[in-house]
């Protein structure tokens, strides 16, 4: 016990306690070398993205004639077309609903299953873990046809649920594989302490495990959200009604049988990556917020 409290006081001193951070203590500057390296790396990461964003401001003809050039003249029509139409916002809403529910479902179910795999001992545990890991091995491009039949037989066609539940299922292997080590790392001492305090195993799960494994939970949550946000194949097959379309499907509107409006597609996809980025930036603090001090100390 003393080890824990000792750790906690020491943690407070070095100020990584997140509640302290929110009162906006000033962070120190890093060394210039660090910033320089970070700048180079970021430049490499971001230049292609900028290319995509700028591409939305050009016309197809511009892109063909002068691939490396800047928009000349700047053509805001593509972006306006997207933002002005009601279709885009409806799709944003659908995508958001699907992604949020998928994330909550995948992380919730995954966390429960990982807890069982990490901290219970029973025959067949290896088989259960292998079952989930095996699901990772199969490419979805092939499973889509029989999956369609399953969804249809359950009456989930053309509904967001028919997209959400299979996405949860396909997100489970990655979630579980990442969470199991996190959950294993929770020391027995904490669990014993909780039991001594009268907590049941289930109570321990619901009250403490979530908080203790938060970095892992956030990580898998972000992965699940992004996976769902960008998913194209599954919604394509399940959703027939324009009003249920998610964002990736919206790209279809800009490609007819014989032509693709590249510039318009670039504008559309530039806009559609924004919500996923916002979601990530909201939660990225929590990954590195470091509750671990209180736990591992």
């Amino acid at each position: 016990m003393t080890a824990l409290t000792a750790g906690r006081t020491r943690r407070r001193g070095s100020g990584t306690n997140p509640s302290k951070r929110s009162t906006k203590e000033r962070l120190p500057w890093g060394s210039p070398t660090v910033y320089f390296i970070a700048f180079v790396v970021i430049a490499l990461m971001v230049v292609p993205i900028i290319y995509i964003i700028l591409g939305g401001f050009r016309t197809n003809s511009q892109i063909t004639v002068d691939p490396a050039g800047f928009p000349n003249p700047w053509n805001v029509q593509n972006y306006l077309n997207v933002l002005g139409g009601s279709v885009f916002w409806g799709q944003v809403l659908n995508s958001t609903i699907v992604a949020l529910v998928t994330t909550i479902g995948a992380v919730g179910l995954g966390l429960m299953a990982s807890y069982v795999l990490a901290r219970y001992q029973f025959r067949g545990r290896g088989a259960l873990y292998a079952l989930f890991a095996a699901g990772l091995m199969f490419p979805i491009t092939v499973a889509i046809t029989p999956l369609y039949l399953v969804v249809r037989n359950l009456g989930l066609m053309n509904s967001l649920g028919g997209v959400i539940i299979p996405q949860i299922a396909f997100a489970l292997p990655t979630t579980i594989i990442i969470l199991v080590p996190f959950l294993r790392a929770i020391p027995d001492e904490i669990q014993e302490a909780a039991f001594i305090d009268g907590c049941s195993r289930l109570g321990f799960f619901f009250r403490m495990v979530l908080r203790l494994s938060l970095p892992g939970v956030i990580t898998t949550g972000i992965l699940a959200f992004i996976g769902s946000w960008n998913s194209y194949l599954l919604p394509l097959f399940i959703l027939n009604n324009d009003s249920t379309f998610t964002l990736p499907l919206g790209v279809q509107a800009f490609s007819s049988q014989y032509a693709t409006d590249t510039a318009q597609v670039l504008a559309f996809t530039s806009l559609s990556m924004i919500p996923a980025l916002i979601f990530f930036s909201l939660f990225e603090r929590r990954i590195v917020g470091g509750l671990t001090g209180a736990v591992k100390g």
Partner: protein
Amino acid sequence: MKGMKLLTGAAVLVLGSLALSACSGPSDSSSDSKVSMTLWHNATTGPGAAFWKTTVADFEKANPNVTIKIQAIQNEDLDGKLQTALNSGDAPDIFLQRGGGKMAAMVQAGQLMDLTDKVSSDTKKVVSDASFKAETYQDKVWAMPVSVLPGGLFYSQDLFKAAGITEAPATIDDLSADVQKLKATGVAPIALGAKDAWPAAHWFYWFALRECSPATMEKTADSKDFSDGCWLKAAQDLQDFAAQNPFNDGFLTTSAQQGAGSSAGLVANHKAAMELMGAWDPGVIASLTPDQKPLPDLGFYPFPELSGGKGEPGAIMGGVDGYSCSVKAPKQCADFLNYIATTPVQEAYYKAFNAPPVNTEAQKQVTEPYLQDVLAAYNKAPYVSQWLDTVLGQNIGNALNVAVVDMLAGKSDPKGLIQAANDAAKKG
């Protein structure tokens, strides 16, 4: 272990019920009072999408007890979605039909409505038998043709003039000479979207059309055996032609129609002088020009003749777009198909898609000179073949597409190409 047993038991129950509840969808009760149908097409944007909305609205007005729900699906995705829907009994009533091997497979699976007796006599008056031939399998008609898309070379008259070319090449030797002239002016003589493979394969198919007699081609279509010497000769012709470097730089990673940077885009922006394509190309090029209007100096000439070949001079290759009814569709589906073949609708189709209609009356309304040239070449051709990859079926067609790209990239040779085609039969 009881926990695990409980789990397994529950899972088996769920799985069992899922497996047992296969393939029993609710069927449309097609009573005469209210009929509702679904239409799947691939014109997701622009005048094409508007065309279908108008056409459906007009049909519904003329037939008040019918409603049709439209779904526009991106072209690349349509086949997969359609196939899955057909297999699960969920098929739309009216849908785009590609013809060829895909249609044959649908017929064999009993998924299409037989239209042979449902084509009205009015329709037969304005749509030629030749157009129906593309939608015929085992002597029955399975789709209504709406557009005929013959192939040939679409070129920029301005670029030709600038290179000192006064008339379109009539033979392959003329074409080779023109290629040299165009190179001297600094533009790419021929745009080729080899990334999508079929544009490259089209060069092979056209050479084959010139080298092989129609009888040989039909025999090979049945036997899938490419041992006749004309096929090897066609491959050799292509290799020789490609050795002059007539194609644009980086043609291996140039797409055919995917927007900016595609071969159509090169022609639209006068960076390449011509490309070998079907009659949909003017519409594609028009979308990629700087002002997004049709290319003003666009011209057309048929694929040049080859001396010594066994093919019929003037033979032409092309595709036909059509629409089928699913076998479960109500009979009003056939009425709709007859409706879209009528002259006013066909004229609207031509205006919307800038592609030649099948309706011979509507064809008289075509104004663009290059489309008129296309139709002229088509109507006087002694022999019309569908695209060879359609005729040979998707499996062989696909293998040929790959083999041609390999040969053009230098990874293979004419013998290798023929070998690949023969080998493909093993996979399907």
